[in-house]
């Protein structure tokens, strides 16, 4: 029983990391239909922000707290730069966006290598997050994992509330639902796009900060992470925040359970098969809006 619970929590924390990464994608990919392959490097940018701040500031806890807003802005601005320079020209060609942003990701990786060096770098976790919590005598969960889970849930709540209640959120939803109508109604869709991209990319920065607690920071840390995160958004249903949340945790739990009963190696294939099987049932993802269109 304890073992199951412990695997369950491992799954939930895998899911929380996936969710943090996928959350930004659910905005840029889900809402704007932009496949930003450089999202992983925006995560790395967030992680390197922690690294730099720790060089400047002494306290690990303080630098982590400051890093959250700073990484959000750093990654967000980087994302806006990519949007303005490249993606804006490609809204009609989503598949081409994928290739172009892959190029961006290669360049950013090399920038990281040239600035911070090719080997992974280490950050110090704040002492409050280095310990673990003993739920029962056998069930021990690490504080940093709990922190990431809380961070992911707070990010989801903030994003949901922001999209529902703020004027910006309403504009984003308006542009997503009918770009032409929004433009005709006097919305500056270009500005809304940039803001959406800023927030989506900023969320990648936050994910990067969280990842410094559980793994090394390196130039290519983002590449493998985003493959699964994109899957989460696809399976959750495009433009559906709740789908992203449910699928991230489900995928995390399935993965940890399968890994426990088999091996990491076999689990990777089984999880893929499960996803293809799921798409047989729901090819448009978990949640969809049914509309009349030929798309």
């Amino acid at each position: 029983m304890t073992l199951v619970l412990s695997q369950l929590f491992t799954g939930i924390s895998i899911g929380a990391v996936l969710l943090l990464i996928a959350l930004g994608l659910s905005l840029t990919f889900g809402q704007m239909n932009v496949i930003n392959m450089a999202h992983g490097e925006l995560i790395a940018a967030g992680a390197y922000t922690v690294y730099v701040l720790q060089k400047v500031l002494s306290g690990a806890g303080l630098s982590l707290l400051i890093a959250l807003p700073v990484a959000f802005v750093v990654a967000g601005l980087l994302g806006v730069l990519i949007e303005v320079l490249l993606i804006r020209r490609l809204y009609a060609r989503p598949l081409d966006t994928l290739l172009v942003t892959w190029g961006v990701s290669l360049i950013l990786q090399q920038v990281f290598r040239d600035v911070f060096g090719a080997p992974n770098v280490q950050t110090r976790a704040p002492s409050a997050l280095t310990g673990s919590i003993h739920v029962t005598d056998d069930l021990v969960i690490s504080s940093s994992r709990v922190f990431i889970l809380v961070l992911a849930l707070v990010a989801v709540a903030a994003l949901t509330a922001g999209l529902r209640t703020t004027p910006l959120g309403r504009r984003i939803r308006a542009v997503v639902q009918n770009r032409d109508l929004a433009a005709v109604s006097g919305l500056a869709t270009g500005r809304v796009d940039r803001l959406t991209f800023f927030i989506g990319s900023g969320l990648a920065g936050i994910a990067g900060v969280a990842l410094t607690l559980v793994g090394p920071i390196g130039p290519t840390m983002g590449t493998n992470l985003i493959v699964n995160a994109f899957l989460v958004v696809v399976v959750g249903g495009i433009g559906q925040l709740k789908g992203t949340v449910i699928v991230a945790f489900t995928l995390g739990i399935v993965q940890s359970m399968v890994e426990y009963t088999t091996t990491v190696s076999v689990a990777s294939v089984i999880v893929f098969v499960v996803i293809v099987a799921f798409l047989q049932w729901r090819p448009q993802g978990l949640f969809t809006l049914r509309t009349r269109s030929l798309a």
Partner: protein
Amino acid sequence: MTTLQDPVIAPDPTIQPATRRFGAGTGSRAVIGFGLAAVALFGLAPVVLGDFRLGLLAKYLCLAIVAVGIGLAWGRGGMLTLGQGVFFGLGGYAMAMHLKLTDAGPGQLPDFMQLYGQLDTLPWWWKPFASPAFALAATVLLPMLVALLLGLLIFRRRVRGAYFAILSQALCAALAIFLIGQQGTTGGTNGLTDIQGFFGYDLNDPLNRRTVYFVVAAALLAVLGIAWQLMRSRYGELLVAVRDGEERVRFLGYDPANVKLVAYVVAAGMAGLAGALFVPAVGIISPAMIGVVPSIEFVIGVAVGGRAGLVGPALGAIAVAWARTALSERLPSAWTYFEGLLFILPVVFLPGGLASLAVLLRRRTAKKEVAA
């Protein structure tokens, strides 16, 4: 009869029929093209290039074979497959398994299995690969079978566009992780290395390595021939129609899933063949050559050369691979920046690739002739 007005517009001489625009030309032009390619590959290259460079060219030609398949699936069929590494890998591993078994000799285990696997007997799924006929067939048929199964499942459910790209990429990641984990039976991260012989010929002998080059070159010509026939056929026209209006094709009574499936499966077979030839040409196959990164790198040459053409993808793949060798050894950092720009600049500013430059030039000269 109806009294439709005769059309007011005259045929525009600068607009070429689609078959020519796409570069899968008429019979005589194609024969000339194939002739030139054959002369360059079989006559020129072996004379001009030394053993080492010819070996490199053999490797590039393998990548070109993959590119021809991607050109068919993506350029003509609109399926951006980021997972060709899977098929390349299946073909490569099938070939390497057979060659490792022949290297080891009858009844013996391949070297790495004794090292890491602590195995006494060969795993059951290795056994059929001892047969050269089975292994050779598997290099092409196994990738095609996997593509058929996956394609049936996802095209029928109308998973397409970005979703298809992401799924194909995820399969790549899954397979790479799988292979790395099975060190005892697949060589893990190292892959299957140190291949010595190729169907009885010693690969350390430069002469035999030249022979491998000729085999690869012949395979590329054959693959180009297949793609050429597919592109100029009625099927090729239908494939473009599915790319541009999948739903519209449905209303004409076709099931677009089947149309896409053919191109996808053929592209997978080509990637498998390329992987199989890559093994004797380079001497190794490993997860690092089939994962997410190499798979997307297969696409870059196609984008640079011109995705919708016949020779554009192949030439683009060769050019990019050559540039990588030339630049990455001397200036590794500069190469990565350059590679990044290779993904960005042609796609943003020249979506038709270098092939479209040629078309533009031809059109400009044609206009000048008209003006003069």
